C-alpha cells in the first residue's frame, strides 16, 4: 500500500468490513476491569475446572449470574476459555476477567496448556494422529 493510499483511508473506517463485527462495550459486566488487572492472560484452550467448593451454595454473594453460569457450564464438562466465550456470547477478554475472579475465589482452577514456544511431546503427537485416523 502506498502512502497516498493510506492517507486517503480514514483510520476509523478500515475495521468495519465482513470480517470485523460491530462495536461493543461489554466491559460493564466486569465493572470496567480488564484481564490486564488479573495475572497472566488465560490461554484460549485453557480449561476451566470447578473446585469442590463450587458446590457450596451461597459461598459468594458477590458473584454475578455470568460467574454462576461459567461454573455451571464447566461442571458438566470442563470448558475452554474460547468455548465459554462463544457459549456465553461474551468477548474473550471479559471471560478472562470473570474466570480470574472465580480462580481468586478458589471456585475453579484452570489447566495449563503446552507452554509457549514448546511443542507437545512426540508421544502426544502420535496419539493425535491415531485419534484423527480413528475418527
Amino acid at each position: 500500500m502506498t502512502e497516498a493510499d493510506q492517507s486517503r483511508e480514514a483510520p476509523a473506517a478500515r475495521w468495519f468490513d465482513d470480517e470485523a463485527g460491530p462495536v461493543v462495550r461489554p466491559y460493564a459486566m466486569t465493572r470496567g476491569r480488564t484481564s490486564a488487572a488479573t495475572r497472566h492472560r488465560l490461554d484460549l484452550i485453557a480449561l476451566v475446572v470447578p473446585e469442590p467448593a463450587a458446590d457450596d451454595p451461597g459461598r459468594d454473594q458477590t458473584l454475578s449470574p455470568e460467574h454462576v453460569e461459567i461454573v455451571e457450564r464447566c461442571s458438566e464438562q470442563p470448558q475452554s476459555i474460547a468455548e465459554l466465550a462463544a457459549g456465553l456470547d461474551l468477548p474473550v477478554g471479559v471471560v478472562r476477567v470473570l474466570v480470574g475472579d472465580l480462580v481468586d475465589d478458589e471456585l475453579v482452577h484452570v489447566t495449563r496448556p503446552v507452554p509457549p514456544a514448546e511443542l507437545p511431546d512426540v508421544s502426544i503427537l502420535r496419539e493425535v494422529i491415531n485419534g484423527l485416523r480413528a475418527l
Partner: protein
Amino acid sequence: MAFGRSSSSRRQPPVEPVTLKILVAGGFGVGKTTLVGSVSEIRPLRTEEILSEAGRPVDDLHGVEAKSTTTVAMDFGRITLREDLVLYLFGTPGQDRFWFLWDELAQGALGAVVLADTRRLEDSFAAIDYFERRGIPFTVAVNCFEGARRYPPEAVRGALDLDPEVELVLCDARDRESVKNVLVAVVEHALVLAGPDRAPVPG
C-alpha cells in the same frame, strides 16, 4: 448464591484433558469455517476479541470511545480424540491487520493449515510467510472448488514458493475424510520437525 447441584457431593473429579490446537488460516471465503465444521463435534463457534483502532486487543476500555473499538471474530471447533485428549481448531482471517490474533493463537499451537484457493493464491501468501517466519509446522491445503481450474500440485507449489519439506495436499473442505487427511498431514509434519532424533526411521 447456590449453584443448584444437590447431588454433586458424590461427583467424580472431572477428567482434565490435555488440550491442543491447530490453526486454520486463509483468505476470506476460502473455506475455513467449512473445514472446521466438517470435523468438529460441535457446530463451529464464534468468539470475539475487542480491537482498538490500533489493531491490538483492548486491555483497558476505560475512557476509550466506542467508535474507536470494534471486534474481530474467530471461529473454532472441538475434536475429542480421547477422554483425556482434546484438539481445538481455530480459524481466523489471514490478513495483516489480524496478525495480533495469530500471535496469541500460535502460542503452543501444534501446527497450522493454510487453506488456499487456486483462483486467489495470493490470499495465502501472508499466512505462509507468517508460519515460515515463526517456524510453525504447516501444511498447505488447496480447497478444490468446482469451476476452479485444476493446476498440477507442482505448479501451485511453485507459485507459492513452498520449501520442499512443506506438504501440499488437495482437499474438499466439506468432506470429513478429506479434512481428516489434511489434519493428519499437519501433525505428521509436526512430528518430523519435532527433532532429527525423532524423525521417522528411514526405510
